[in-house]
């Protein structure tokens, strides 16, 4: 096959997979064997093999979230061998390839664990808390139409690039999953700093950070203690600097905004 390393031998693996029928029922780890796994497969293609096998045997396939398989939609969310998206740095589960594992390995696969991310089934979790945080203020309140020309406000390239880097967050939740405190600060900070950096975000700068942080707390995420696991495990490399920006924005907003409540 094109691209495959002729020396790469197919692998046999043991999978320890979290199985849980639904939110209400307690789950458990179940062991499965998968054989003849090509090192060129993606991790999810390996799970496809397992699922096809289970289905043929009349057993319930393992539910997991995935969609684009290009590392951009943020759907996939597996906790592999004790780490968000597995062992490879800067990589989503769907872009993790089996060549990172060896024949005979045992691989533990669990869902994201956080009370704010309840399990739907097996490895699929509910991340709607993230949506509600964005709904609390992660936008610029402009209606469609009537906006000024795109070149009306020049933005220094460096500022624009930094805003872009923060904006590349894919909302997968790896930060929360990896954090000892199940904190969502990296996610929240990415959006807050993107909009705080850009001129378009200035108008609602104070309310945005106040409301988003309030919603983050309501959702039951933990508080950041600057451990840094989030940024280390983030598949798109969102930097801890964003959390500092969030803290600064929050402090400034609270100290200077006119909101008494």
């Amino acid at each position, binding site marked *: 096959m094109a691209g495959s390393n002729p020396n790469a031998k197919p692998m046999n693996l043991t999978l320890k997979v979290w199985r849980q029928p639904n939110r209400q029922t307690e789950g458990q780890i179940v062991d499965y064997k998968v054989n003849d796994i090509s090192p060129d497969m993606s991790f999810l293609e390996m799970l*496809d093999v397992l699922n*096809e096998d289970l289905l043929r045997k009349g057993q319930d396939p393992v539910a997991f979230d995935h969609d684009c398989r290009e590392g951009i939609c943020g759907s996939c969310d597996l906790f592999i061998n004790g780490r968000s998206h597995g062992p490879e740095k800067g990589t989503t589960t769907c872009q993790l390839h089996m060549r990172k594992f060896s024949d005979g390995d045992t691989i533990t696969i669990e869902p994201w664990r956080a009370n704010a991310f309840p399990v739907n089934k097996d490895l699929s979790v509910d991340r709607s808390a993230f949506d509600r945080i964005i709904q609390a203020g992660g936008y610029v309140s402009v209606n*469609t139409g009537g906006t*000024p020309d795109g070149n009306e406000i020049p933005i220094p390239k460096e500022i624009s690039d930094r805003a872009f880097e923060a904006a590349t967050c894919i909302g997968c939740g790896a930060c929360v999953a990896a954090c000892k405190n199940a904190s969502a600060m990296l996610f929240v900070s990415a959006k807050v700093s993107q909009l705080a950096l850009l001129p378009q975000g200035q108008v609602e700068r104070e309310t945005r950070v106040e409301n988003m942080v309030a919603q983050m707390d309501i959702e039951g995420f933990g508080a950041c203690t600057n451990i840094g696991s989030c940024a280390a495990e983030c598949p798109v490399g969102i930097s801890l600097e964003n959390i500092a920006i969030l803290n600064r924005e929050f402090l400034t907003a609270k100290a200077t905004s006119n909101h008494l409540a």
Partner: protein
Amino acid sequence: MVLNSKAPEGPLAEKWDKHKFNVKLVNPANKRKYDVIVVGTGLAGAAAAASLAELGYNVKAFTYHDSPRRAHSIAAQGGINAAKNYQNDGDSVFRLFYDTIKGGDYRAREANVYRLAQVSVSIIDQCVAQGVPFAREYGGLLANRSFGGAQVSRTFYARGQTGQQLLLGAYSALSRQIAYGKVKMYTRSELLDVVVVDGQARGIVTRNLITGEVQTHAGHAVVLATGGYGNVFYLSTNAMYCNASAAWRAHKKGAYFANPCFTQIHPTCIPVSGEYQSKLTLMSESLRNDGRVWVPKTKEIAERVRSGELKPQDIQEDDRDYFLERKYPAFGNLVPRDVASRNAKQMCDEGKGVGSTGLAVYLDFADVIKRTSAEAVSQKYGNLFEMYQKITDENPYERPMRIYPAVHYTMGGLWVDYNLQTTIPGLYATGECNFSDHGANRLGASALMQGLADGYFVIPATIGDQLAATPPKPVTTDHPAFAEAKAGVQARVEQLLSIKGNRTPDEFHKKLGNLMWEYCGMARNAEGLRYAKAEIAKLRKEFWQDVKVVGSGEEMNQALEKAGRVADFLELGELMVDDALDRNESCGGHFREEYATEEGEALRRDDEYAYVAAWEYMGDNQPERLNKEELVFENVKLTQRSYK
């Protein structure tokens, strides 16, 4: 039925303004009395839902994803076109219109395409105002790059993640309306039927993918923004969940399906590496700005490369064939996608392909790295190079990329008039879900443009025309049509679960995909198409006898979801073949081997086929009826496309 596009009369440049003046308006106080259902929350859907809510309509938005931020619009890499002429390189609304019509091989509707070019300008302004961090020059103004099929630089971009940034912009606008309570958002809800009451679209039936609950929802109008059907081919650059079910259910309820055979094969994708392959990954067209496409000059050298004896970097310049530059000196590596794909296939068919399967050509960056630096290349394409290396384990800075064409986009879709209304009154289709703007081939960076144009600017203006004629009385799901549709959906779920056969939905899907790729892919001929038609019919029959789904309908059941989608693909696939058989010409993405020039280029037959083929569903296992919308070109001269 005579299809009336309802495109306004008059000069091209005045049509849209004139039309906006002529459509009926719903007064602001009445807007809140209308419920609009929007299905799909990609660029078109999120933009439409947000914009309609801003106008005052009550919107119910649906997505099968866990969040509206995940639609596959997010994966678009290269950029979005707009006729801003910021580069002072001679661009204009008319040029964008012209390029799009020509790029689409003269099979799109003039009025729609011109409108698209007109509103493209506002899209950029809108997105910048939302805080979309487009690439900028050092002076702080927006940057542009060039894309296939155009000789001006009009593509706005955000590194290799333009789709993501635009979708997150639309998602933020949608989130704001959800917070205001103007949009009620239903996630993990898949459309399984459209409800038509007295000839009017009045609602939908959905299945909650977590609980399995089948629900009905009523509205005064239904907007579909459910994307394309490229996954008919099993392997494509589409996301895993992308499917045709929403459009197909609408079709079976009376919406005509237009030009289903117009599918786009993207020239630069990472080649298939094995049987287990679940999807294909695109390498952005923008790479062709700097990368040079080539194959070894002779079969003998290619053979040595395939066996691993020779490395591509060691092949002498004289032994390489930069076939696009050789054949199309004017556009070179930047010819439109269909042309680039077909040429790559031709090279591989001639035995000059590379990679161990021989189904790949090289995309080489050695020259640009030498001319500038590896760092400069990384600045532009870093994330794409990284992705390539993750997937293939090869370093594209040192060794040329291997690429091969793959199914990417479907130009065909639900037939819509100038208002984006389907043949079912009250049912609209936007974005890739409709057929309207790209003809037989879409130019790069135009999908994002069309999705956002439809969502932000067209639908909000045109939907009022229908609603103003509808009394502002509340709609409910009380009508028997709802119960009937719901029962139909439930029966189908039960049927899929009760077959208890031996083959998984994926097995059927793969088989269908192989047939489609082989006989209705990059090159088609009548014989192959007839064969495929018979095989698909057989496969469909087998499916309903032998598919295997376990579990129940009252839980999260991904195999059940998949089975339902495959069942629809099996019907749509046959229609695509029918359409390809009907169209006895080559145009854009539709290349019939019988209709080629002596040089092997596509041979269009304008005298007979300058029409939109809109297929009408006539009942289960009945042949569909062809309705034609004649395409009238008043502003461009139909010529054989030349990129030489």
